[in-house]
């Protein structure tokens, strides 16, 4: 516990933590000191002087900035007296000497700290009659952010954010004195994955978001709190809508997940929900055409076919892929549907790019996101967090940059965190096991010693499609054998993957972190009745089963395997061979365009429920829009089909599904909507009362032990890509890098590559032309191709690659 000191604020005595800033201490005790530049999550600068308070000092009372001075024992602070009031009025009068009074046409109007504090603390009048600063209105500083320089009050929040928090300081004060402004370097835009945060924290309307500009007035917006669902960290957000249309998303500050920050994907990636292309009615294939039909008809058709196949071949003729995009309630319904109604364990929410289901859902010693703050060492041997887990990236950056945590990064090429890494190793994909052996044998002593620390957090996941997914678990096993206390964070990327696995959407999993066939899930058997007890097929095997006819009917739930699988061709062939495909989705995509029946589903922010993040933290997501047309929640679609098939799920309401989960899923005992809505706004990490039956201890697995030589393919995701949700979010889709191949300057020279010129890339699974990017971030011998890009082709998972210059 930190020591406390006794101080007086406005005549009231308080005990406050020693070393705290006056502004924070006062706020915690209920006294709000006005401020512009100070932000709880950033270092103080004392830039705006709005927080002046009067402090008794040996030299008499004096004005100090409450955001830069710390509390002291016996300190007496006055925040409201005549001197302070005069100072506050003066500061506001100065700020408004140049700040335009264009509030009626400013996005910030109605939620503007300057407007609010001018009302609450300002003089109400000004002695300045001079002409104010004028600038060209507005200038785009990035594809997403606009800047009206005359509104800027030079608080340095945006510049500190980009420097201290996101690590891409592409905006900075320019010029000086009366003409000081925020700007970028000429022709070097503020293209940060986190640019939207500056819009949120700008205390005036100087920075505005293109997608939201002039769309609404804040007092007209309906708001609901929820969690961002683009990756598995689930940052807390507030969704704002008007007339059932979502207009913006802002970050909500909480300690647990995101400190209020959001990636631009979480902030601006909601456009797909309002897309014209959303499915609005059930579609049924007739004579090669998809025809719109009513729900009753569509459900009858599906149920009849399920009946037929079930009669002939039983449960083993069914496969289910997907379910990671919905809520836990949806996932539970799907899990029950697969087992009870279809009678199969052939169900998987992972897309063949994932770690083992038991490691993901039930690893021992799972890390919390906040463990990153207190670790001695963090080892990241996973995807480039900046590209795939932007929220974790910010937290890890903060740990290394502000909290002095040692950071070790192992990745095929430079990641977004390399500039903050204490140690980094780059290697050729496919050579991961060889490198791991080297570390185990002490070839990299600096890493071995950093790992021998007291508290180590290890973040593991697949670095590259060309790397072995089994590597991640082996890394965790090695670190466990070296360090004092180890916390493990196995990564999966997609939305609610962890919730889906916890609900049993894995071939060897049942709800509540129970493995298929395990004894001890009596309550489940009691509630579900009979279901198969041997493990089913995973995504890859389901697709193979479709190919060889063993599986006749495939149910796709919010899944697009053709695009999402590292080798899309496998999915394409399987879908072509499939006898019957039913898809529950928001959109037509590359996988369901030829399905037999397509059922329109509700998406994010259109339904309530629970979700579970990478830590195992359960949070509540909420609805703010009814969704388009006749779209329905997954669980209710499944419940209706099950009723028609005659093996019903008995699920009638999302909230009662949550109750059923809490009863039958051991790890979810005691987790109810009520608890999360009223008591635990930041969510709870399960299990809270119950226990989990799977306690998976990571083990070292077999893999190719020889280091890779020769030109090696590295395929990995980038934040923006050609995924189906991105495709329907135009503001972000256009930021996808496109078909590129990154080469080291040495390799480029050898291969005759020139920046921007096309190169032919050939692998075992695919080939295509990619524009060359010559960059030092890619080590010699590694050929980096961003996955699933608009206009690109899939290159598969084999690390062997040939690159040649395209002539002409």
């Amino acid at each position, binding site marked *: 516990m930190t020591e406390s000191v006794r101080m007086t604020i406005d005549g009231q005595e308080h005990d406050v933590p020693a070393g705290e800033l006056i502004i924070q201490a006062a706020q915690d005790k209920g006294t709000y000191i006005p401020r512009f530049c100070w932000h709880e999550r950033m270092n103080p600068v004392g830039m705006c002087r709005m927080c002046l308070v009067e402090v008794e000092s040996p030299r008499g009372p004096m004005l100090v900035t409450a955001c830069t001075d710390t509390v002291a024992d016996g300190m007496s602070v006055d925040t409201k007296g005549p001197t302070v009031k005069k100072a506050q009025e003066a500061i506001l009068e100065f700020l408004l000497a140049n700040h335009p009074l264009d509030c009626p046409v400013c996005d910030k109007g109605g939620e503007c700290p300057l407007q609010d504090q001018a009302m609450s603390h300002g003089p109400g009048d000004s002695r300045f009659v001079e002409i104010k600063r004028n600038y060209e209105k507005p200038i785009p500083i990035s594809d997403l952010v606009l800047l009206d320089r005359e509104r800027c009050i030079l608080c340095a929040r945006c510049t500190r954010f980009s420097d201290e928090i996101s690590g*891409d300081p592409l905006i*900075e*004060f320019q010029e000086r004195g009366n003409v000081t402004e925020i*700007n970028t370097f000429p022709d*070097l835009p503020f293209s940060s994955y986190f640019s939207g945060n500056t819009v949120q924290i700008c205390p005036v309307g100087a920075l505005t978001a293109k997608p939201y500009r002039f769309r609404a007035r804040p007092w007209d917006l309906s708001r609901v709190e929820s969690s961002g669902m683009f990756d598995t960290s689930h940052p807390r957000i507030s969704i704002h809508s008007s007339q059932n249309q979502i207009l913006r998303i802002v970050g909500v500050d909480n300690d647990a997940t995101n400190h209020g920050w959001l990636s631009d994907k979480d902030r601006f990636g909601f456009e797909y929900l309002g897309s014209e292309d959303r499915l609005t009615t059930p579609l049924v294939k007739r004579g090669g055409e998809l025809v719109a039909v009513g729900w009753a008809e569509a459900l009858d058709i599906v149920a009849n076919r399920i009946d037929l196949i079930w009669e002939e071949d039983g449960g083993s003729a069914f496969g289910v892929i997907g379910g990671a995009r919905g809520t836990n309630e949806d996932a539970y319904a799907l899990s029950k549907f697969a087992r009870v109604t279809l009678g199969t364990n052939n169900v998987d929410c992972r897309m063949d790019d994932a770690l083992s289901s038991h490691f993901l859902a039930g690893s021992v010693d799972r890390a919390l996101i906040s463990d990153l703050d207190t670790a001695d060492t963090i080892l990241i041997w996973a995807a480039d967090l900046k590209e795939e887990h932007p929220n974790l990236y910010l937290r890890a950056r903060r740990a290394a940059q502000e909290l002095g945590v040692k950071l070790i990064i192992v990745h095929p090429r430079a990641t977004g965190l390399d500039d903050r890494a204490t140690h980094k190793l780059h290697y050729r994909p496919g050579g991961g096991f060889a490198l791991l052996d080297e570390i185990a044998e002490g070839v990299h002593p600096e890493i071995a010693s950093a790992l021998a620390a007291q508290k180590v957090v290890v973040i593991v996941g697949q670095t590259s499609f060309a790397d072995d997914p089994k590597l991640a678990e082996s890394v965790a096993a090695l670190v466990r054998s070296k360090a004092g206390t180890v916390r493990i964070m196995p990564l999966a990327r997609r939305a609610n993957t962890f919730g889906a696995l916890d609900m049993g959407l894995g071939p060897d999993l049942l709800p509540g972190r129970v493995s298929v066939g395990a004894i001890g899930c009596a309550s489940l058997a009691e509630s579900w009745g009979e279901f198969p007890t041997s493990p089913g097929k995973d995504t890859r095997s389901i697709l193979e089963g479709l190919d060889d006819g063993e599986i006749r009917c495939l149910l796709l739930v919010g899944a697009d395997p053709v695009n999402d699988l590292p080798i899309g061709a496998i999915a394409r062939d399987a879908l072509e061979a499939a006898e019957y495909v039913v898809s529950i989705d928001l959109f037509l995509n590359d996988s369901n365009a030829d399905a037999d029946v397509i059922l329109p589903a509700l998406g994010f922010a259109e339904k309530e429920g629970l979700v579970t993040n990478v830590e195992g933290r359960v949070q509540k997501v909420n609805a703010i829009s009814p969704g388009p047309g006749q779209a329905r929640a997954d669980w209710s679609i499944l419940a209706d089909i099950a009723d028609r098939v005659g093996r019903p799920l008995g699920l009638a309401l999302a909230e009662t599904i949550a109750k059923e989960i809490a009863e039958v899923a051991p790890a979810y005992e005691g987790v109810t909507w009520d608890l999360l809505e009223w008591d635990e706004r930041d969510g709870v990490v399960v299990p809270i009362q119950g226990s989990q039956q799977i306690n998976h201890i990571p083990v070292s697995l077999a893999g190719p032990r020889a280091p890779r030589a020769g030109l090696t393919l590295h395929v990995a995701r980038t934040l923006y890509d050609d995924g189906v949700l991105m495709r329907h979010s135009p503001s972000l889709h256009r930021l996808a890098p496109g078909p590129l191949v990154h080469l080291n300057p040495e390799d480029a020279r050898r291969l005759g590559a020139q920046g921007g010129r096309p190169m032919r890339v050939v692998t075992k699974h695919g080939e295509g032309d990619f524009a060359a990017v010559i960059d030092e971030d890619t080590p010699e011998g590694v050929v980096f191709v961003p996955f699933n890009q608009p206009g690109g082709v899939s290159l598969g998972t084999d690390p062997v690659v040939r690159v040649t210059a395209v002539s002409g």
Partner: protein
Amino acid sequence: MSIWSEETQVRAKEIISRYPEKRSAVMPLLYLAMAEDGYLTDEGMEEVALWVGITPAQVRSVASFYTMYKREKTGRYLVSCCTSISCMLLGGDDILHAVEDESGVPHGETDDEGLLSVEHVECIGACGGAPAVQVNYELIEGVTSEKARDLVNWLRSARPEVVNTDEMQELFGGVRSFDWAVSEVDGAIGPYPAFQPLGTVGTEVGE
């Protein structure tokens, strides 16, 4: 690959090696960039950013804060007339007008030939010898309007390779504030300050 000459690169390395944090070298490196291109170009600032490991926006932030970093083409001789309080009281504005008038170059601008730039500046630390003028940051004290005109004409006709305080003070100056200690350098060869190891000719004067 650096856009700078071998020689400049050697100097850059040497300067960076003096600081525990390489970003601290941003200011002297900006002078290098100026010396390299004659003024501070965008490319020059980007190069500095690479050398000291910060972003070009951050470099430009520093460069645009200080008026001595010239981001526009500057003449071979930069004539700076002080118009701060001491000089102003003793005729600094008149001197500025005389320079503008004689040269035909308004303050803040450069002549077509690229020979002369004229600017007015805030106090240059020579208040005791006001009014003061600098040419390429080499100081002349106790200047009069007539002498200022002479100075302009001298720069135009003599086109000295190196400008040097002592020589100019002799020709165009008046009363000096005090007897100066030995000058550290012999003069300046361009519109950037003549500190080591930049823009310097000769070595220290040994008396």
